[in-house]
């Protein structure tokens, strides 16, 4: 059981680091260029980062999963993907 929690924590921490890194790079690109295309894309990556952060409390509090259903996470992912697609298609 302890091993499972450990693996869970490592995976979640990895997920946060990876999404934070991606968001950081894309947001920096937006800050340097300041255009709407990069703004949409960085907002999309920000949504992914929020999703990754929202998974953290689950490890500490079991009731948390009941408060935030799986659909909320899927919805955040969907919003992130839509924003990235809008950014990519924007000229």
């Amino acid at each position, binding site marked *: 059981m302890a091993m499972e929690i450990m693996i869970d924590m490592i995976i979640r921490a990895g997920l946060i680091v990876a999404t934070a890194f991606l968001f950081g*790079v*894309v947001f920096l690109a937006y800050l340097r260029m300041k*255009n709407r295309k990069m703004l949409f894309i960085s907002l999309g990556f920000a949504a992914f980062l929020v999703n990754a952060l929202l998974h953290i409390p689950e490890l500490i509090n079991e009731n948390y999963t009941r408060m935030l259903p799986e659909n909320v996470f899927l919805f955040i992912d969907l919003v992130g993907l839509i924003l990235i697609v809008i950014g*990519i*298609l924007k*000229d």
Partner: protein
Amino acid sequence: MLKEAILENNRRREIFIFLKANPGLHLRELQRRLKMPLTSLEYHLDYMVRKKIIYRERDGRFTRFYVMLLDEEDKKVISALRQKRLREIVLIALGKEGAKFQELQGILGLPSSTLFYYIKYLTDHDIIIRMQVGAETVYNIRNDRVAKALIVYKPSFLDNLVDKALYTFMETHFRKPKE
């Protein structure tokens, strides 16, 4: 054309870095240490003196070279030119003394909307200016600080990452450009 400009800029950067580490060297000593042809070295030194990147001082029968210190304005220009594509646009405009939009697009192979973004960024940051020559618009370098920034600038790991992100998202177009 771009490759040549990049190569020349790299040579100037090499001279600049060497002079920064060894201030006050004279021409022959520089030539010996850098192992560069004398005419080429003289040409690059002259260019850098004209652009106020380095300065020379007479010392008896020697002319010694020193690098100029960076001021706040220089730092602003360097910070605005951290992205590779922006530096490439500036290098072309610097070499041609006025580049047309189509020329830039042809050399860099960028979609017009992306090139437009980059040019807007450069004009907003007072790096290049838009000039009307007859019916055509040409882009010219605003001041000599730009040449200095190109030589002094050293890309960081973060700059390379941002370059890659910009390349991926700004230069990949899935839709056909509007005619």
